[in-house]
């Protein structure tokens, strides 16, 4: 059973920020597909600010190759809007794999980021698009990269009075882009491992490679040294093989060896290899 709690439903951003500022211990609901589950499990939460009706937060705008996604844009919207399909294929693919249709209709990109699960599907694609988050409070507006925003599993730099209002990403024209994940069943499953990639090639060379790996380390991450290694190199199997080994080494460097790696490292190797080969 859900515990008793008080909920407010602001309609403007200013109203929402004022509530967050004055209540102090309020939790934000942006879909509720994580928060309500946790509350049902006993997580204490007395005050809830529901931002689903806040005007403007569910807007998506495209300007000069820059895409601004409001924090209450749902996974369903991201996975079906044509323009995102074209400009951020990995993100729309990832959001189309989240949960079930019901969860995709409720869950939002903002909620996914603030929950900061190591297995959140939207994070890896947003990382390869160098996402920058807009964070607002009653007195201040700040920007932060997604990489810095998540500081630990289920932990972000967001202060109790702050609200994540939008995510800004750049399109990657000319890049071959994608997202693959593995899960225990065909749908409605938490991702067991995921890889997002955007690769720019020219005449058999890697010009720029962006990789992100999810559900493997405490936070989804970009193996920067591997990206750097591949820059400018010829696309041949030995190079790809070396890159794949570097990815697994980088994962081990972050977490040490884990029992789950018996499964995850072979999978990540195969998926990265496949992504690089194209």
């Amino acid at each position, binding site marked *: *059973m859900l515990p008793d709690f008080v909920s407010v439903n602001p309609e403007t951003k200013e109203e929402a920020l004022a509530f967050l500022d004055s209540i102090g211990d309020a939790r934000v609901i942006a879909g509720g597909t994580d928060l309500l*589950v946790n509350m049902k499990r006993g997580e204490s939460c007395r005050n809830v600010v529901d931002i689903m009706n806040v005007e403007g937060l569910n807007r998506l705008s495209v300007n000069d190759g820059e895409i601004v996604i409001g924090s209450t844009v749902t996974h369903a919207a991201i996975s079906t809007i044509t323009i995102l399909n074209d400009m951020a294929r990995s993100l729309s693919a990832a959001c189309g794999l989240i949960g*079930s249709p019901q969860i995709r209709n409720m869950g939002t990109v903002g909620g996914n980021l603030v929950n900061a699960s190591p297995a959140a599907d939207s994070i890896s694609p947003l990382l390869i698009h160098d996402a920058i988050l807009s964070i607002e409070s009653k007195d201040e507006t700040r920007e932060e990269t997604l990489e810095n925003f998540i500081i630990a599993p289920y932990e972000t730099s967001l202060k109790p009075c702050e609200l994540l209002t939008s995510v800004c990403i750049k399109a990657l024209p000319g890049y071959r882009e994608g997202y*693959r994940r*593995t*899960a*225990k*069943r*065909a*749908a*409605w*499953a938490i991702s*067991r*491992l995921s890889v997002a990639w955007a690769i720019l090639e020219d005449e058999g060379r890697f010009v720029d490679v962006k990789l992100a790996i999810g559900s493997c380390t405490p936070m989804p991450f970009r193996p920067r040294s591997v990206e750097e290694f591949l820059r400018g190199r010829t696309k041949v199997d030995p190079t790809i093989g070396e890159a794949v080994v570097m990815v697994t080494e980088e994962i081990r460097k972050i977490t040490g060896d884990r029992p789950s790696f*018996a*499964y995850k490292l*072979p*999978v990540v190797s*195969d*998926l990265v290899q*496949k992504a690089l080969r194209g």
Partner: protein
Amino acid sequence: MYIGNEINRIDAPDKVLGRPVYAEDLSIKGALFGCVFRSTRPHAWIRKIDTSAALASPGIVKTLSCYDIPGENIFGIIKKDQPYLAKDRVRYIGEPVLVVLGETEEAARKASRLIRVEYDDIGVISDPFISGDSKTLIHEKGNLLSHRKVIKGDIEKAFREADVIVEHTYTTTWLDHAFMETESGVGYPDNKGSIVIISSTQNIHYKQKEISKLLAIPEEKIKVIQATTGGGFGGKLDVTVEGFIALSVYHTKRPVVMRFTREESFLSNTKRHPLYIEYKTGARKDGAITAVKVNITGDTGPFASYGETVCLRAAIHATGPYEIPNVRVDSRMFYTNNPVSGAMRGFGVPQLAFAHESQMDEIASMLRLDSFDVRIKNALRKGSSTATSQVLRNSVGIIETLKKVEPYWRRRTRKNDHTGFGLGCMYYGIGNTGVSNPANACLNITGDGKIALHTGACEIGQGSDTVLVQILQEALGLKIEDIVLIRGDTETSKDAGSSSASRQTYISGGAVFDAAKKMRQYLDEKGFYKGRTIREIYASEADKKLLEHNGFFDPPTTPVDPETSKGSPYATYAFATHMTEVEVERETGSCRVKKVYAAHDVGRAINLKNVRGQICGGIAMGVGFALMEEFVPGKSESFDNYYMPTSMDMPDVEVFIVEDCEPTGPFGAKGLGEPALIPQAASIVNAIKDATGVRAFDLPCHIERLKKLIEDKK
């Protein structure tokens, strides 16, 4: 013709419109809510129970312990060894200790969290292989619940003379039924001094008997009614909420509602038995299987539930639908402090089908023969003798089911190197094993000119209501408007046995058919078939007792020999062949089932839509059994971490119906409920082998296991 048609289920319009009131939806004004306080220890003495804080909590009415039970604090379908409420000792995590009654659900659950128990832990037995020799006894008479044998021919000689021998070990794990509706019900005292229980159940008369013993009240004073039930699969055969509700009504004289949460259901409901199967097969060069030796070790948890049934049924079915001259099966079921395992669709046979069908493929591959040909060569036919030396005279359709899929098997082509095809065959004895398991049915003519059918057969979603009505219609030549079905009430119906063992179409159907024959003769004598209406017949009958006709059917079986299992434990068997196509993603180890060709010998299909529905449902469950479902004690709490297939995991299914009529069945019908599931996991595992070259010996073959098998082979 009313049978063999595309008739809609009679409950379909109501269910589509959301009208039926399921047990979970039931509420009674002024009812108390009851919840169960459960053990958090796998094995411990109870030293002290402190309910003082709970009893001081707002809205609390009462707590009930084993000392509040007026009758016998014990239940069980065969061996009665399970207490309703733990006395002195708990034997598994989740064992009921107290019933907590509150004015509301919230009050009851809150109070229940305030109960404190002091335990003294006892050594925990978590492995059936340790259980047998352990000095810690879960029950006084020892930790071996049951040891059954099947012995036929000379197994040692046969292995000596065999050209090839294949020997492997197969394991399966706990599965939850995961029915849509959790265990729920209500109870109240009626104005005649009886206690009425309405619940989500598969067997009303059994529960009536158990409650009568629990409360030391005669059976006539206990009325059990089946509410519309959201699935059973064997998990609602044991007493779940019913005993607690009855006890609560007894003490409070007030209506009481109970409803397990999903978490509670996962924790407390019986599971599919994990079996450890050592399987040795001997064959000649031409593919004839000459010897099968099987050792089965099972974990039944701390209470018998259906452990003995599974132990015996698994042994009897261990050879699969093949004629094997030399057989030795040893099947043992041990008590442990793991979750209680009980009845679940197939009673151990799906586990054994996984083993014997894997063996068939391995034998074929070793002999470089087509596994289809090896199956057909060894398949049972009319005149064959089963592992229990029962000679099959009628309705042996296994070869026909193989022939239905043969064209697809011969034409199969692997689209690429990650697709593959596999076969799975099965046979399954319909009804309970080697014991009398009759059903009654009662027909009477009502004042408003209808024929009322009273049956105790529980409709749990499998379609028995529709099938029984169709049988009645066919036998009497009546339109649906002329029939009233009154089902699932111990006061108005006689015992039909439980909705389990794929038995209701065959056995309750047989009872309805028997009653209908008598009714038909009566109606004929009274001129119904010459134009008189039922209403007129009713009005003209002076002795209203003559308007009633009872039907009875008990399948002809013999008990099996306790040492060799020789005998005819079932009057009839169902047969099936599934051919499955899978696609395996080598990078991730995920397997998708693409297509299933499912051929079933059902004797006679009473309702084609129901037959197809049962088969599709069985396949879905088989996909879960093969690829993902795994109850891990202490970890699997809810659907969050117990993965079962969704519609996206469901393959295309093509159904082929074989009708090799069973002479003792109503219009030739047998059963289908469990057979639909049994061969599916086996066919998936064989298809994975075809696709990847690796064989899974442990189920579920989930992504991590499959990836490891693929990596190990590299």
